[in-house]
């Protein structure tokens, strides 16, 4: 089904909104709850490559829309990750591998938007290392803990859309 990526994006959006609301709660600590990397894992196992690319671009642009990050930085990074993951599906063949993948992708994508925002900001980055570490730690924890519920939602949506299941064998 050609529009599976769009319907899947709509099915994933409540999780992105939930992350934004969690960021709202954590606003006084200047931390962002980031889950876009995690949301990319389950679709990378089942969607066709081009669908996965469009899904990843949508995820990235949704995050960037309200934030002062250079246009397309996160979206294009997620697209590159989507191409890699959908071309190497055996890397995500089991749940522990998916959890590892979610943590790595979420932390890497978080690092990309943080650096892009630092590049765009006109304020000096004195002492930002500690805060960056906290942000990456949060992204890793949220990425790992959030994978199961997000993937369950996405798999349910893909089952309904008739997307073929992922192979469990390498």
């Amino acid at each position, binding site marked *: 089904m050609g529009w599976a990526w769009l319907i899947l994006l709509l099915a994933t*959006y409540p999780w992105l*909104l939930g992350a*934004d*609301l969690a*960021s*709202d709660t*954590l*606003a*006084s*600590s*200047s*931390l*962002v709850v980031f889950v876009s990397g995690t949301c990319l894992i389950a679709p990378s196992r089942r969607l066709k*490559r081009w669908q996965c*690319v469009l899904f990843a671009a949508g995820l990235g*642009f*949704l995050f*960037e*829309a*309200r*934030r*002062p990050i250079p*246009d*397309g930085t996160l979206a*294009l990074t997620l*697209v*590159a990750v989507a*191409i*890699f993951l959908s*071309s190497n599906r055996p890397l995500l063949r089991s749940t522990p591998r998916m959890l590892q993948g979610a943590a790595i992708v979420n932390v890497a994508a978080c690092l990309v938007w*943080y650096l892009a*925002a*630092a590049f*765009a*900001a*006109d*304020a*000096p*980055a*004195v*002492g*930002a290392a*500690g*805060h*960056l570490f*906290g*942000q990456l730690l949060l992204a890793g924890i949220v990425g790992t803990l959030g994978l199961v519920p997000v993937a369950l939602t996405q798999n349910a949506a893909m089952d309904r859309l008739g997307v073929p299941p992922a192979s469990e064998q390498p």
Partner: protein
Amino acid sequence: MDQNRQGARASYVALAVFVAGWILLPSAVRRLNREAFVEFQAPALHLVGKSRDLATFWEKKSRSSEELVAAGRDLARINAALEIKLKGMEDIRRENTRLREVTRYNVPADYLSVVARVATRDSSSWWQRIVIRKGRNDGIRPGAPVVFGDTVVGRVTAVHLTTSEVDLVTSPGFRCTAYLEGDDQNRIVLINGVAANSLGTAKARVSVIPYDYLLPAGTPARVTTTGMGGVFPSGLTLGYLDGGAYATQVGNFKESLLVPSRDLYNLQEVSVLVPIIQTPGEALMQGDQFQ
């Protein structure tokens, strides 16, 4: 397997071409793309905000009638006191207008106050923002000051159809001039937000404090807007100086930190002061640099 590898290679090449095209694209196309994704999310933000309002409504509805009677009585007393103050203000306003006419003094910008509910807050090292549920449809324009009572909250940086983004006073992109309480000569200091690099409350930097400025004893020094630059009306509270002022490396001036006078992340409602006549500052803010 080979086909998969070839497909991946072709995808990477296509991505590289797309990245090059994306960089060369006119900024209007990128802005249109961003705007489309913002408008896609706007209904969800409105829904979240309205759900919060509904929860507050039901929470207040569950209060006992005794509590409501007591609150009504307190409000009536406050109203009576305010009415007396208002009459005094009216006399001052007339006197002010007369003096301005006599001296042919420039009339400061008039503002239209648009009350807006806060939809969501978003904060990281590099931005501290709130999203409000009023936008272009309600007459809000980029660059308009945002206040709560007599306290400056921030400035509108991006306006969409039904929502707007507000950079808070502590956001690294925020800049304005101010006066310090206790400085009889009314010398101007600069306020600019700083990147938040701790998990504590975000603060702004107060720079160009005159070397001979002494903090008032006992109370923290209030920092107020100057009214210069045409963005903020004068006399609004930006916050208070945090502790002492320390000398800069050059040593000609001192610096300090500004603590906002309100918890900016707990505001439910703010007022946007839209200038009735467009100011030169606003025109400058309509460029590409404000997203």
